[in-house]
């Protein structure tokens, strides 16, 4: 069939809808999608949780970064925000919720208590949630301001960008396959 410039036909490409084609790597595409819709698991255990709630509300508005969908079911969550004092009584429950989260998953220790036990150098408090689960970002402060939490989540986005979408973010899956 003869075609002219004004009357061109394409088999699988509709120029009206798909005007731009972007070529990228699978890794980069997956990371881009993951980092822009991180659904937090709000593990609010003490005063820091108030700041986490503030961060999600209109004044600070986490949804600007795609993270406002707080999921109270660990199976739907991507990033666990441990905000507050982790007592030994609560520690294994936190671990259990973490274990129920599907990969890829990340953890943020928000505030002095979650990072290190904070001011509670005592018999009752776990001295940092990193003793039980791997932490990606620590946020200092007692409590950290909502801006600090947002900064932490942005840091986590940077981290996700730089990691391998499968080899580094699906470790448990790879272990199961091996």
């Amino acid at each position, binding site marked *: 069939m003869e075609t002219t410039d004004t009357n061109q036909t394409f088999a699988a490409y509709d120029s009206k809808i798909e005007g731009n084609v972007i070529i990228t790597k699978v890794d980069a595409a997956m990371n881009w999608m993951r980092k822009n819709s991180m659904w937090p698991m709000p593990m609010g255990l003490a005063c820091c949780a108030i700041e986490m709630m503030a961060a999600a509300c209109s004044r600070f508005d986490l949804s600007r970064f795609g993270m406002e969908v707080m999921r109270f079911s660990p199976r739907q969550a991507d990033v666990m925000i441990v905000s507050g004092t982790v007592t030994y*009584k609560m*520690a294994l429950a936190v671990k259990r919720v973490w274990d129920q989260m599907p990969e890829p998953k990340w953890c943020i220790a928000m505030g002095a208590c979650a990072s290190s*036990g904070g001011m*509670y*150098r*005592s018999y009752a408090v776990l001295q940092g949630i990193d003793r039980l689960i791997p932490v990606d970002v620590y946020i200092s402060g007692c409590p950290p301001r909502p801006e600090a939490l947002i900064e932490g989540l942005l840091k986590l986005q940077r981290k996700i960008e730089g990691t391998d979408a499968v080899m580094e973010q699906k470790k448990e899956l790879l272990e199961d396959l091996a």
Partner: protein
Amino acid sequence: MSAEDLDVLKKEFAAEVIGTKEFRGEHTITVSLAALYDVLAYCKNSLGYNFLLDISSLDHFGDDPRFEMVYELATVDDKKHLRVKAPVGEEESVKSAVDLWLAADWHEREAYDMMGINFTGHPNMKRILMWEGYPFFPLRKDFPLAGRPSDMPDVAFTGVAPLEGGPFVTSCGTDDVVRREPRARDQK
């Protein structure tokens, strides 16, 4: 008001009263453990203390008897307050006050959980803050601030907190800001 109640109690339980004290308008009566329940019942039924504010316990480590129970009584209209104390030896147990004031339930469980004082006649004598099976009583004076390791698989575990030279305490009552700064006791 409470001062008159002290006189009544002294007359009623003459031999069992160990001492009374007034400090800044607060009245305290110390009675023997054997008479404690009767004194509390008398306070409630005859003197009108129908409100139990709090129960706490003290550890006078090294003394005998070692522990002391403290009951804070009041009336619902807040007209008068009375503090009732009783010494408790390490092997002794206290008669529960739950049938006088229901509020005693959780307070007594806390005293048991933190201090290891036993109560008889309590409807639900088990730990309230720590978990069943935790082996220590953490508010006793001979329990270290940093805690002790323990482990109950699938329930909970505890560890020793790093104190890094602490506990850091402030010296209250000094005007000097530098001296008031919290610091470990030995590095004066």
